[in-house]
């Protein structure tokens, strides 16, 4: 699973704020366990993780985190319904083969799902494509088109469409700009889609 490099991840802090202390949390694509550790230490959560890379898993397990080597696309199916309070997918949905299926599994396994993802509608990416005619790259998306693990990019608006399609409810949403600051809360979607470099959504099942 991809993890955006960098020491502090602004989306972690946003995600952390959205989690109730003591929750049961599954972090899908947990990388080196940074978020799980943050949630364990700050929120006292009962956290579990899934991570694709062996190195990531081994680091997590050596840190005492309950993380399994696995794949969001294949392994979520083995979890029972309502096993977790929250299932998190941070900066990983764009690397899954079947984002819709993954999202549906998350909302089946957890009462709520938190998804953070890079917004491909950000003005800088649009600008690169328009002016240079090349696949955009950025600090958070450093890959070339031929070596990127990110195979299903979307924009904030695309994601909102998918949420509607699978009949989920948006409980909370945040867009972060390139500096990791929150984009104005009262701004319309088009504004977020242009100025949000990444977005964090908290979803639940429609009642």
């Amino acid at each position, binding site marked *: 699973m991809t993890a955006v490099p960098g020491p502090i991840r602004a989306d972690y802090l946003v995600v952390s704020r959205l989690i109730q202390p003591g929750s049961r949390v599954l972090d899908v694509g947990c990388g080196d366990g940074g978020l799980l550790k943050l949630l364990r230490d700050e929120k006292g959560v009962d956290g579990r993780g899934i991570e694709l890379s062996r190195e990531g*898993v081994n680091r997590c*397990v*050596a840190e005492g985190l*309950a993380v399994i080597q696995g794949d969001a696309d294949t392994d979520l199916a083995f979890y029972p319904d309502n096993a977790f309070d929250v299932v998190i997918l941070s900066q990983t949905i764009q690397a899954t083969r079947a984002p819709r299926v993954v999202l549906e599994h998350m909302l089946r396994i957890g009462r709520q799902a938190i998804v953070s993802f890079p917004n491909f509608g950000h003005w800088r990416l649009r600008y690169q494509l328009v002016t240079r005619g090349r696949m955009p790259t950025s600090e958070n998306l450093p890959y070339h088109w031929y070596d990127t693990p990110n195979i299903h990019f979307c924009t904030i608006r695309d994601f909102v469409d998918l949420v509607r399609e699978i009949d989920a409810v948006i409980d909370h949403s945040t867009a972060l700009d390139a500096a990791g600051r929150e984009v104005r809360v009262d701004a319309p979607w088009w504004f977020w889609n242009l100025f949000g470099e990444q977005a964090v959504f908290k979803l639940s099942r429609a009642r």
Partner: protein
Amino acid sequence: MARARRIPDDLARQQADQPAGDVAHFGTDEPLVLDAGISLAPFQIAYRTYGTLNAERSNAILVCHALTGDQHVASENPVTGKPGWWDIMIGPGKPIDTDRYFVICTNVLGGCMGTTGPASTDPSTGQPYGLSLPLITIPDMVRAQAMLVKRLGIDTLFSVVGGSMGGMQVLQWAAQYRDAVFSAMPIATAARHSAQNIAFHEVGRQAIMADPEWRGGRYLAEGTRPSAGLAVARMAAHITYLSDAALHRKFGRRFQDRDAPTFSFDADFQVESYLRYQGEAFVERFDANSYLYVTRAMDYFDIAADHGGSLARAFAGTRTRFCVVSFTSDWLFPTADSRQVVHALNAAGASVSFAEITSDKGHDAFLLDEPELFAITRGFLESAARARGIA
């Protein structure tokens, strides 16, 4: 060709009844009811301990040995004179830290190092049991261990750890005594023995039974040993513990003490010489009937079958923390076997870690110098110790 160090036959033999280390005796008032439907009594369990049990009795780790292992996990083996088989993992300051934890290792039921097995003397006849001992299963081994753990005054094991057949015992412990197992570390193992593995075992057993010195299992009473058969069984099995890459790296096609083939069936190749050595060394320390019993116990192992075909059901509601480990080049207990356990534990809502370690050393990797395994073991036990409140 290298010669196995000659070990006086009676050195291994005497371990069966009078083992080095501790022995717990269970009389006719404490029979062990075997899966075969027979009550075994009296019987004995040979074991070793390392470290100190704390006042709360909360720091005990049971280490379970593999097919041909024994209780001498972290101290000199009384027969071979070699260091304990997991000396690299267990000891002061090591991943399973005997400065912190109280480590128990028992010889399995059916073994030949002091726990009741086919080489033990049947008190009713004064002769070795041989094939008159009922067949043993992995759950039988675990029930016997549980009787010892209880006698040691321990209600809950802090952890149960083991690789290969030891891992089977770990899983059985977690399924059968879930409230008595705080954490569990099944390594390079499976929740059921595969058809391929049963097939390999059958080859080994047939090699033993085809040796005329086996004498229908009565070789001890008749003063012989099926050494050739047992050595062949070991040679065949040993190949399954390694990997193509490891064999190639170690031996390639190199000749043994010669520059050209001899055009004979002598051990021209290093790999042949190595296997012959492994076979010869093994027969010096292991009882052939024990090999039959213990391999059979592994063949019968299938936790899901004991729970209506559902492995997840075996672990439903468990509060044990699991850490499952496999190795990339292990084709005897491949990662898919471990993943099956992990999926069942996920389905059961268990707390589970699962790491696949990159190694070309095959199944044996779990016994060798694998820094990632050490880091994972240390980290997993540390976090479990924090949760358990062990200083």
